[in-house]
């Protein structure tokens, strides 16, 4: 069965733009990305869309569909009424490059500030021994396809660009949690999670978890446990005593400077 859908699609760049109206054919079983591709092939050859795999695995086609952040390749047209007008806009938190494509370089900059995986250097090739139960926690976070829907949705930075400097966003706080829970990692990122990456700004409203297309329990399994670890470190009497008598380092691994001033 096929029908004609009414689409309002954001056209323009960061400076200016507007919603443009189109009528596009929709066929059985199609997703929003199929319809945008048909629009591109038949009516708007230069419509900018970012996409890759069209299978929910690469996290490229993030956009807002009727105001709801999602992957265009995994949003089925059957979830809308045929008579409904679909409004399709770029991610709101990031600057628009053109049409539905945004500049997500903020995320790559944050990724580079987090101290990398730090194993015991004496472990040779093939000598790591880890139990499934121990790797499973970090594995959940490594399912992340970096679609940045959580970053886009988190109210700490959505409409608050002033917080971007001190807040890494759910994706990268989760990356810190992933490294902290990695059974072979030896660095300690608990202090910088709070001081440099803004863990304290997260007030666990779970919006990130709700939009995650991989169904990762970002808040429950990454952010809250990370908060507990940070508190555990800050108020652990042994750590406090150790720092006083010089047995334990007072500061953990520093964040990596973005670029020399």
């Amino acid at each position, binding site marked *: 069965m096929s029908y004609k859908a009414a689409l309002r699609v954001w056209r323009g760049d960061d400076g200016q733009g507007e919603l443009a109206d189109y009528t596009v054919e929709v066929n059985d079983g199609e997703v929003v990305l199929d319809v945008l591709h048909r629009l591109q092939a038949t009516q708007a*050859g230069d419509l900018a869309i970012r996409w890759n795999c069209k299978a929910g695995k690469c996290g490229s086609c993030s956009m807002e569909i009727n105001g709801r952040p999602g992957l265009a390749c995994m949003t089925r047209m059957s979830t809308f009424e045929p008579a409904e007008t679909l409004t399709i806009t770029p991610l709101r938190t990031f600057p628009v490059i053109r049409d539905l494509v945004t500049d997500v370089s903020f995320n790559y900059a944050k990724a580079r500030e987090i101290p990398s995986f730090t194993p015991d250097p004496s472990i040779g090739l093939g000598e790591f021994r880890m139990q499934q139960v121990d790797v499973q926690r970090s594995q959940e976070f490594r399912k992340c396809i970096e679609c940045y829907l959580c970053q886009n949705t988190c109210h700490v930075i959505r409409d608050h660009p002033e917080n971007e400097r001190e807040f890494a966003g759910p994706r990268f706080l989760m990356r810190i949690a992933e490294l902290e829970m990695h059974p072979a990692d030896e660095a300690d990122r608990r202090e910088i999670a709070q001081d440099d990456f803004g863990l304290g700004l997260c007030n666990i409203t779970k919006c990130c978890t709700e939009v995650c297309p991989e169904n990762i329990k970002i808040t429950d399994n990454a952010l809250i446990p990370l908060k507990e670890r940070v508190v555990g470190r800050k108020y652990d009497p042994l750590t406090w005593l150790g720092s006083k008598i010089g047995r334990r380092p007072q500061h953990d691994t520093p964040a990596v400077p973005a670029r020399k001033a």
Partner: protein
Amino acid sequence: MAMTDIERLPYDVVVIGAGGSGLRAAIEARQAGKKTAIISKSLFGKAHTVMAEGGCAASMGNANPNDNWQVHFRDTMRGGKFLNNWRMAELHAKEAPDRVWELEAWGALFDRTKEGKISQRNFGGHEYPRLAHVGDRTGLEIIRTLQQRVVALQQQDAVEHGDPEAMIKVFAETTVTRLILDAGRIAGAFGYVRGTGQFLLFEAPAVVLATGGIGKSYKVTSNSWEYTGDGHALALLAGASLLNMEFVQLHPTGMIWPPSVKGILVTESVRGDGGVLRNSEGKRFMFNYVPDVFRAQYAETEDEADRWYTDPDHNRRPPELLPRDEVARSINSEVKAGRGTEHGGVFLDIASRRPADYILQRLPSMYHQFKELADVDITKEPMEIGPTCHYVMGGVEVDPDTQAASVPGLYAAGEVSGGMHGSNRLGGNSLSDLLVFGRRAGQAASEHVDSVSGARPAVGQAALDEAVTEALAPLERSGGENPYEVHAALQQLMTDQVGLIRNEGELQSALSELEKLRARVAQVSVEGGRAYNPGWHLAQDLRNMMLVSDCVAQSALERQESRGGHTREDYPEMSPTWRQVNLVCTVRGEDQVALARQPMIPMRGDLLGLFEVNELKKYLTEGELAGVSAGSAAAPEETR
């Protein structure tokens, strides 16, 4: 920005492509102290490697201690029907374990065995459980690990040089349209930033092609938009050659319903983990399709096949785990015989064979994919599947040890290179191929940079002007052909006439249709400007897809036998004399593909000695067999 402004960027090594092989090559070049650029058509971390599902083959012997490089080598050669570049297959089998373990040291978290080692799973064509994996998202784990390794190196550079991008920089959403030569040597690469249309010239004596495959020339494919054969075409246009382009792998299990998801991959792990193929009569038909060359290794009854999962030492493998080419052809035959499903495929059933929680743990992405896109719960119902264009075995002809193409300074690694997989790639051998040969290409490119120090090739103005003119042409024409329509016509043509089952008449017709399409491509015009304009981008990619399609069709017409990913209904037999022939394509002028036959280099004696003579008889000519006993007696070479 004036129309023709070009930003010049000096580098030592330029890697085109940011999937597994590109990132691994770039890491190696940076670790060798070379200033390295990584160019990616997509964002960093989105390359096609993320779609690899099942795993990465390496004979670590964690699941079965009998596994070793010799067994992996044998499986790879059998899978490729002995047309593989045997030296590459040897290096691959020997080095894959170290490359996987290295990822672990960079933070990868593979699934584990009870002893805490990396877990290994069964896959088609592999004698033992051999695939390191993370559920069914192994490619994502590998690309993320390599991405994070690049970031770790950048963090070191931030400390040392004050700039994280001092020694290794990612140029995301950037396309290269031309390699530029100086007196026959690589001098640079020309391209544009997709977001702005800004032209870039990378001035470098070494270029590593790591651009992946060609699937977007076909209509039903598991490949993403990036797979337009860019590296294949760049190599051809620079004067390098392509090897055995007729071999295109159709993965037996792609989704077929609804139409919008047709082609999306369903991992082979479904079968490795116990799933079976059934026709519309409910029959496990694969038992009828075990070819003679594999008869000794595959079960003849369902009972034996089912026992194999728990007792592989005393039972033979289920025929569902035959190499991909065999399974894809069998599915095609069942459908043609009228035993297909409603939507023209067959059933892949794991629901009736494994408990729901096992399926959810082993195949979470498949569960998700079918639930979200097709309303099918794979723990309760069978999946409907059919063949989808997945991988090209053919590619840039390279030196097996260094990945060097015939043009000095040019290297190719991963899917864009040819030879390693022969006529058919085994599942799991792609991720390991990326790592092994990505590293080797990065190493050799770095050594090449050292060898030219002082006398670097220079980019001439004429070549640069031509590249600019070519890139701008579709924007300057108006009222011409729509690039999307021309692309759709090419995909239809390649799917209909150069697809799974081929014959002379259709291939000849395809070549004359390609000629007509070439005229249409020359008339493509696009609306809009240079900033993030997908119509303009596609217009550039069409040149590459046309060249590659021409090579595939010409090679397919030339090779009068059926082997691996090349099936001729008019020449259904595999021919030992054709096994001795490699088909090599080059380009004369701008778009005239020339095809030549080239003899296969005979396999080294100690490697031949790894096979039983009875097995070799199925592949080799009488003449070759006469030399086998003498060859096998030769002292084995280094076994590192």
